[in-house]
């Protein structure tokens, strides 16, 4: 199986949040935006940032987990969460350069995108809508570290996008 990766073009995100709906339906069986593994941040209207795990080559989240609740799926390269082992300590969140993992809103365990075992639902709806903010690509094979550049906080991403979309005055606004 070829390892896939979810590529993203933030500037194309329509803010429709259909990916959140699709992801939460798949993993929770409900329309539940806060329990979606992909979350759209709109820190400034018009600048929507799809935020999801990038599968860092060095997996700092996995490293940081004190209970071995996180592991790497060898086939897909996704981070898998063992809900039984997770003690909801949040160490993985601290370790992630993009602060991407988040606690399930009502259950006591972390949630991280698992690439839907190679068949990402979020990508399907984004592609169906032809927004093309998300698409699947082969996992980049060159410098794996450049993948990691995507593991940034929504604040950081918004700053750059704000300059691009609205002009430099807006960059300053993101706290």
């Amino acid at each position: 199986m070829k390892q896939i990766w979810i590529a993203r073009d933030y500037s194309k995100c329509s803010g429709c949040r259909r990916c959140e709906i699709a992801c939460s339906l798949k993993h929770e069986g409900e329309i539940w935006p806060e329990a979606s593994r992909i979350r759209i941040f709109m820190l400034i209207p018009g600048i929507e940032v799809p935020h999801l795990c990038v599968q860092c080559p060095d997996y700092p989240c996995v490293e940081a987990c004190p209970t071995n609740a996180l592991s790497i799926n060898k086939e897909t390269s996704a981070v898998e969460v063992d809900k039984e082992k997770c003690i909801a300590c949040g160490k993985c969140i601290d370790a992630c350069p993009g602060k991407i993992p988040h606690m399930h809103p009502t259950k006591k365990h972390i949630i991280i995108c698992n690439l839907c075992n190679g068949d990402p639902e979020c990508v399907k709806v984004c592609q169906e809508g032809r927004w093309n903010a998300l698409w699947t690509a082969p996992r980049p094979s060159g410098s794996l570290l450049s993948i990691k550049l995507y593991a940034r906080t929504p604040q950081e991403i918004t700053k750059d996008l704000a300059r691009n979309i609205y002009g430099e005055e807006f960059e300053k606004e993101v706290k």
Partner: protein
Amino acid sequence: MLYGYNGKFIEVDLSNEKISIEKIDEQILREYIGGRALASKILWDRLGNKWEEVDPLGPENLLLFLTGPLTGYFPGARICVSGKSPQSNGIVGSTVGGNFAMELRCAGYDGIIVSGEAKKPVYLFIKDDFIEIKDASHIWGKRGIDTIKILINETLKDLSNKWSWKGLWKDPGILYIGPAGENKSRIAAVMSKWSHAAGYGGYGGVMGSKKLKAVVVKGSNSLPPVANKEKVLSLIAEVCRVSIQEKDDWRRWGTGYGGYGVGADTSSEPIRNWQEEWHDNKSFGVDKFEERVWIKRYWGDDGCPTTCLKLSAIKDGEFKGAITDNPDYELQAYLGTNLGIFTPEGNVYVASVVDDLGLCGIQGGNVLGFAAELYQRGILTKKDLGIELEWGNPKAFAKLAEKIAYRKGIGNILAEGTYRAALKLSKRKKIDLMKYAVQSKGIAIGAHGIRSGLDYPPIIAYACSVQGGDHTSVAGLIREELWKCELSMLFADSGVVCSFNVFKLDWLWDFLEAVTGWNITKEEWYEKIAARVLAIQRALLLLGGPDIYWDPRIHDENPERFYEPLPSGPKKGKATDKEDFLKTKSEYYKTLGWDEYGIPTSETLNKLGLKDVDNVLQKIRNKIYSS
């Protein structure tokens, strides 16, 4: 089991700083669904017996933010804002998109009922079960863009301070007002996401009168359970599929092809305060918007497949810094052609200023056009206005919009909306100016004229609608098309969904059944539920007060302008046909079981189970029959 609802409403009494949770009986929800329909029930029950005395801008008015059972499920979430309208003195259901409705539903509520008036500026903060009235003095006076930025940053800080275990918090849903609302303008909107507005009705002014700057909500739960999940999911998929595959022009250009298209094709677009309705000005073509000002081609609200909004920003030149969406057709018309502005940049600039001030683009554009025609005719002068209000000058109109929002000089009169401004200025100038006021029952008419007969609104669309000039709720006889009859349009406002994603009427009833499990047929909707809501809205509209009352013999009428022949275009010479209008009007009354003046008859009201409404209407019948 109640499906499709959380079954809980937040009740906030701002005068006494009291917050409580209200449950509404399932029977009532079934009879009124949600949104606009439920608003009519709540307002009738709580304010009906003293309606005439209730000042829409006083503490006794209620401000309602209501979702419906389909909100969040039907693709494209919206929320319905209502209360006693400071424009019509009746009820208007005014909906707005954005991410607020979804957050509210996920927080565990179907709506918010606000009463009273805060002592100092406040905003309401909701995080699931945690609800707080917070100080807003630091944002009072701020314009829209600043308000959102501050509220997002502040809320994220708040959330992580109080609930830090969760990781990064996502932005909340926010409804807010700008300076226009704070200054109790009757044409102020309830705003969301820079440029989204619930504009009809003037509820921004109601928020301002309550000193409620904003409502901020973050919800962490899932949507409430539905009766038939499989069916709901397949309907969602179907609506999305059709919207994406078969409505590509709509997706690609949204309503934004209107600025040129509607004028050129249908001769029904307001130009220079409706003096004309046709233009062939290609400088205002969709290509000019697309290539010159759109920085994002698809922008949408929660769950939306169509994403018909386009984001516009101007990055250099004299209008640098202007941001708005599209502008959508209504704002292309009202803040473009209606002001004689035919450049995308000028249009985006005025729209951006109007959004930021928190004015309704339609009501605002209508009153700006009205003022400019008075200037053109020498009735209002530079001395009156403080501005040379030449057609086509974006800066001049933006300046006047600012005066309106801050109620400065002439702006104090214009902030009352076109109808009231026309009354006041007529008195002051000692001539009848009502003939230049293109409105119905205090509500500016949507940017779709009826003279050419080529656009969708029927001949009685505005004259007979319980929502006045509202183009999203037009009165008409036909039932099977969403856009021709308020009985159908009322469903979208009650469901509460975005009607731009509804391409087949049947989806709505299928959806309702799959979500709620109630088997409400189309017939039941038309003959009972919608008829009941219209009767209540009609009754309260006719009760009116305290400053203005409507006499159906005079006010169930088109604006005078619509009887003037169109001066240009392929439909030159065409005007609204008075006889046709009168005939259609009485047919419409008859269909609804209303008498010759459009007052619901006792028989009709009894059939609808509205005996109490009948009692109140007797007062109006006596008044009209005896004069």
